[in-house]
């Protein structure tokens, strides 16, 4: 075909470091290179503009079918993916666990293979087991996008966090990022640690000693239970939700006590840089990990994070819809 030649020829002299993702799936940030992360964030900038138009829809993924397979309750992430898919003109299908045959005893692998028989192009999976996406990736030809698996990873959340930080600070390298909250059960934390350390941020994590994983040191972050130390001179403060539904044991005496020691208040915030950003992946427990005046205050970018989530997910869907680079040669 002659048309692509015209356009490709035009692009040759400005080819970026990376023009494609190497894998057919997005399973986690751990698997991504810095070039791939930059490609997703750059593409998301273009996608963000699509959401600002009067007609918020482009024909890029026409004829592609995306299945949103959610085994855990989710409003924000599922809605965000669905809007992203629709803005790219993909056909979307939502399967929530309560209405599926999983309640009749079907295994994850069987559910996936049955869906696969109907030839979707991509499956967006949220599951309570760590590694569920890796399992599907091995047995499915469709592209698998991890929308949160157990306590493992939530890559699109980390990407949208990075996108939001980059929008404000114009960089990720050299920033002090303090992540405070339930470090033990958080897949958002794991994805963010991978992403921010790869991109050269100075990452501090902070929480009650009972909620700090024993092996946190090997991820290249600094761990502390002294919240003031974590907050001092921080460029970014990221609060993590106290995940009451995952708390089988007693990790701290009470929610009130947690708020008194770790809750982000205006007083605590004064130790941070004057242009600090306050982030939260949601859903928030007001008065537990974050005070209302901080969540709604001038430093909060929490609603921007939600808005940027759509752009970042559009970028991931678009980049994966082309397939993996190594398959093109095969």
């Amino acid at each position, binding site marked *: *075909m*002659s*048309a*692509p*030649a*015209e*356009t*490709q*020829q*035009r*692009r040759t*002299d*400005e080819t*970026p470091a990376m*023009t*494609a993702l190497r894998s057919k799936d997005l399973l986690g940030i751990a698997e991504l290179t810095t070039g791939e992360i930059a490609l997703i964030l*750059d*593409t998301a*900038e*273009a*996608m*963000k*503009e*699509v959401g600002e*138009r*009067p*007609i918020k*829809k*482009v*024909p*890029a*993924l*026409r*004829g*592609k079918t995306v299945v949103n397979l959610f085994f855990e309750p989710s409003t924000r992430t599922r809605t965000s993916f669905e809007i992203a898919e629709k803005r*790219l003109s993909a056909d979307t299908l939502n399967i929530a666990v309560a209405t599926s045959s999983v309640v009749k005893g079907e295994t994850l692998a069987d559910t996936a293979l049955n869906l696969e028989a109907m030839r979707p192009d991509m499956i967006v999976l949220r599951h309570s087991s760590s590694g569920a996406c890796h399992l599907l990736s091995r047995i499915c030809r469709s592209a698998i996008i991890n929308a949160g698996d157990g306590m493992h990873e939530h890559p699109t959340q980390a990407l949208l966090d990075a996108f939001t930080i980059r929008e404000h600070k114009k960089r990720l390298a050299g920033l002090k990022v303090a992540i405070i909250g339930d470090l033990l059960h958080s897949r958002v934390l794991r994805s963010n640690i991978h992403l921010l350390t790869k991109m050269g941020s100075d990452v501090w994590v902070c929480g009650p000693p009972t909620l700090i994983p024993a092996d946190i040191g090997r991820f290249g972050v600094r761990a502390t239970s002294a919240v003031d130390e974590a907050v001092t001179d921080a460029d970014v403060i990221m609060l993590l939700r106290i995940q009451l539904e995952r708390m089988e044991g007693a990790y701290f005496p009470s929610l009130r006590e947690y708020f008194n020691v770790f809750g982000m208040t205006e007083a605590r915030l004064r130790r941070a840089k004057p242009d600090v950003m306050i982030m939260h992946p949601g859903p928030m427990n007001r008065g537990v990990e974050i005070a209302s005046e901080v969540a709604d205050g001038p430093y909060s970018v929490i609603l921007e994070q939600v808005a940027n989530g759509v752009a970042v997910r559009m*970028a991931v869907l*678009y*980049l994966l*819809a*082309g*397939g*993996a*680079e190594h*398959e*093109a040669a095969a």
Partner: protein
Amino acid sequence: MPVVMDADRIGRTLTRIAHEIVERNRGVEDLALVGVRTRGVPLARRIAKSLREITGHEVPTGALDITLYRDDLMRQSVGPQPLVRRTEIPFSIDDKKILLVDDVLYTGRTTRAALDALIDYGRPRGIQLIVLVDRGHRELPIKADYVGKNLPTSLEESVQVYLQESDGRDEVVLQQPQGGAV
């Protein structure tokens, strides 16, 4: 590699096109320029500058990325996706006369994509097409309103436009097949 337009020629051509725009539209009222990324954008800015010098009026200028509208997206089952860049049209195109600017008109497929993309931003009163080089070989019923240079080519040749803003020099080059194109 024959140079078919040098810097002087490109400069004079863009000035001539600016005069044609003013003549045809009886001024610059309700006009807006939209350059197709990548090289249509600096060309649009230069035409806006000429129009300002001729008429004293500022014509709003934007940049359009057509990647998400390409008709060859997803045609192959696997392969790297073309890079998407940001569209920046900082004005309403409703009821404006849009001057769409591209460097080379060839198959017409880029222009088709650009027309679809533009319409998603509103309902312009009209769209006129400006190209620096028309090299022929149309595959769609598309015609330019303002042409810098008609350049007869064979399918094997390729036309490269270099601009100061992106390439450090102003030049249009016709590359022969043995010139290492493709």
